[in-house]
């Protein structure tokens, strides 16, 4: 009973983080579904082995490892049928709700560009960027999740931000 409660708490807490991270890293809904399910099973199997307070890093580390495995497998295959494009639609928080179609369209275009630019980031930068900016992990947690020193995390995050800015500039030039 306690095991089930512990499991419920963990899944409730981290389900969205696992799914979001998998989705951004794998850029494919079906693979993200598989990874999320695999992580949920592993949490259940290992729930007695890890401290509940350190669960976040364990879960994100497992998610990251599984994503890497999937990316390796995928690199051997060619031409995936299903790609991510439809996946990101609902993840944009429209803080400035507007009925104006022009503003809505503009916001959607900007968001699409951001999405594309995040997608274009190299995997090592993208993982840190997603964990920090979208999943809201702290440097220390990312460091434990990815087995990297905190300073490296900081440097990679800055590189990711610069790269994102460059990617957006490329977009602007292409559009012009």
């Amino acid at each position, binding site marked *: 009973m306690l095991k*089930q*409660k512990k*499991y*419920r*708490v*963990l*899944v*409730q*807490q981290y*389900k*969205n*983080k*696992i*799914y*979001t991270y998998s*989705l951004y890293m794998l850029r494919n809904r079906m693979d993200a*579904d598989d990874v*999320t*399910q695999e992580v*949920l*099973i592993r949490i*259940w199997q290992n729930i007695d082995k890890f401290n*509940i*307070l350190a*669960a*976040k890093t364990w879960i994100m580390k497992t998610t990251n490892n599984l994503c890497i495995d999937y990316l390796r497998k995928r690199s051997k295959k060619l031409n995936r049928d299903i790609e991510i494009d439809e*996946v990101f639609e*609902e*993840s*944009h*928080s*429209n*803080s400035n709700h507007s009925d104006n179609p022009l503003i809505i369209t503009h916001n959607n275009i*900007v*968001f699409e560009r*951001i*999405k594309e630019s*995040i997608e274009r980031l190299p995997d090592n930068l993208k993982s840190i960027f997603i964990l920090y*900016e*979208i*999943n809201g992990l702290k440097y220390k947690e990312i460091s434990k999740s990815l087995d990297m020193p905190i300073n490296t995390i900081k440097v990679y995050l*800055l590189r990711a*931000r*610069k790269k*994102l*800015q460059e990617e*957006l500039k490329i977009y602007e030039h292409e559009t012009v």
Partner: protein
Amino acid sequence: MNTKPFEITDEILDKLISTAYGDAGFLDKIYVKKLIRKHENVRLLYEQYSAVANEVHKVKEHEFPYQLTKPLPIRNVNYKEFKNSFWVDLLSIIINRPLISTVTAIVMITAVTVSLINIKQVEYKYTPIEITTADEQVRKALGIVSKIFNETKTTLRNEVLGEKVGTPIRESIGIVNIIFNKGEQK
């Protein structure tokens, strides 16, 4: 504002980016804000990064699709219960913020303990004179009460029972006797 381009080194650029994304240190923020006020090219670059940072911060986490839990080989776990549970939310807060939770728990326990100790420590200490005075006052109060009781008793016995109760009963018994006597005569 100085329109002459300011040379932005890598270090300054890093500080500028961190400030735009909102996670720079206090001193770095002040330094960057100062540069922004002074130099047009720094301000433009900051605005560019800031605009992207704002958009990035709007990106939310994806909602976990519950249909993913259907084929999971984990028994006795109701995934629908994951939503809207007070205890799950409470435990989530504890897991998420262990330090704050621990501090809050310690503060609450300390507050309760201190308040309990304070309640136990309330002891009344009186001087002998105060005790004697209080004793006299109690005796006087009891005397007054006793006097009132006695007066009430006397009034009840002499006035109420004799006149208000005894007389009507006697009269009614007399009437009953008269009625009986008349009945016998007939």
